[in-house]
């Protein structure tokens, strides 16, 4: 079973933003460093004068995998499914999902990505902007 989520005070604003359809990250007021996952102090200067910023929703693809094995019963009906490692254009890196209908075979590292939040499941989903311009079959729902 998926472990019941423990959302602590540090992470709560990040989760609330996702639930409202936004990707957010922390930025340090002292040294301008930006990061995820949420934490209590800036890992660059160790200060605690940070604030939340909304990500503009663009990223690049660092790497991706496709699970053929379900490591949890809740994933059995999802295999095979992709998992992406992405870098926001603002710098922070995170794990994300791939939009339904995206062609796995066309994924390339460093590909430009456009992000959308599946607010119901608090998931960040990506699609390649190249395939948008090529006009390939994509779900038509509008982001944000």
């Amino acid at each position, binding site marked *: 079973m998926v472990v019941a*989520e423990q959302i602590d005070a540090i992470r709560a604003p990040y989760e609330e933003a996702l639930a409202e359809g936004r990707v957010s990250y922390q930025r340090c007021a002292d040294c301008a460093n930006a990061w995820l996952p949420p934490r209590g102090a800036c890992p660059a200067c160790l200060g605690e004068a940070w604030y939340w910023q909304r990500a503009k929703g663009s990223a690049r693809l660092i*790497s991706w995998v496709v*699970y053929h094995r379900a*490591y*949890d019963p809740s*994933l059995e009906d999802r295999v095979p499914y992709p*998992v992406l490692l992405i870098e926001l254009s603002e710098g922070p890196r995170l794990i*994300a999902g791939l939009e339904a209908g995206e062609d796995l075979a066309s994924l390339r590292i460093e590909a430009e990505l456009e992000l959308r939040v599946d607010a119901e499941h608090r998931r960040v989903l990506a699609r390649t902007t190249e395939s948008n311009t090529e006009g390939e079959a994509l779900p038509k729902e509008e982001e944000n």
Partner: protein
Amino acid sequence: MRGATVLAGIGHTAYGKLPGRDTLTLNVEACRNALADAGIEKDAVDAVFVKYPTSRFESMYGQRVAEALGLQPAIGGVWDQGGATNISMISFAAMAIAAGQCEVALVTAADNPRTGTRQAYERAWGDEYSRYGWFGTPGAYAMIARRHMEEFGTSVDQLGAVAVACRANGARNPDAHLRVAIGLDDHRESPLVVDPLRRDDCCLVSDGAAAVVVMSAERARSAGVAEPVPILGFGAGQTSWDVPQRPRLTESAARRSGAKAFEMAGLGPAEIDVAQIYDCFTIVVCLTLEDYGFCAKGEGGPFVEGGRIELGGELPINTSGGLLSETGMPGMQLVLEAVRQLRGTSTSQVPGAATCLVSNQGGIMHTHSTLIVGG
């Protein structure tokens, strides 16, 4: 420090499925065999360093092992470094001996994930990531493998070449958990676990234990240890916990760890006769060989092709089968095989081997440690 301490004895249990054997008993069996191999009485031991069982972390586990051994050590305990723990603890034991804090150290590791729980290898990478299905050890290594394949053109068959070499060595080792040699086609056709990694890219899950006795070269001489193997160099390196936070996915802490070990040993990659490279997943061998400087960054794929890492090749690796074939145990078996190579007793012996390099690494390449032994 170079050559000041030695691996005086090695011991291990059977590897594979060992129902009914708890980790304390397995540790004791491996230590008993290592002490017998060194010809050292138990009561001479004044330090006990223990790799905690990955499958079931227990607080103060090192003291439980010392108690099971009937010892009251001066120094020791458990280091939480995953698969890098064993060489890290051997290094720490060597430093403690040099600093006069102890004289004879047992370094031991046991686990029983095969008959017990494998949960430690299969859970989600944090609550936030479970919603994406980002679970388990293979997925995290697959993320590194994909980047390496895309960035440098590393191929499925190049990963396969690592599995082929390790499985051939394992097939020659009567103690190995899996004694079935494979070809590149078998590897290619083995089922995808987490694409791009296939079943035959992934290490075994095995029960068992292995231990070494560490002491000063001087003490080994006076105690009449039959076949001490000198420690020439060691080093360590560490990086982020979260894989997404890694500065560069295709570079590991082996770079820093290896550079320090080579510096201490006064050797370079060209002077290594045989290597035991931590092979929890095939891709790790390619990355580690690059980071150690056996080849340039990105050339690990071509390097492992064409039999270069097989017995009889330019750099034979994992001559007892490694994690892919001898036992999935995280790392100590590689140290034992280095000792056998230097003694000339490996089942895949490299003729005249005078230097052996061993890599250990933990987590998802979070931690790294390197050991160089030689005559």
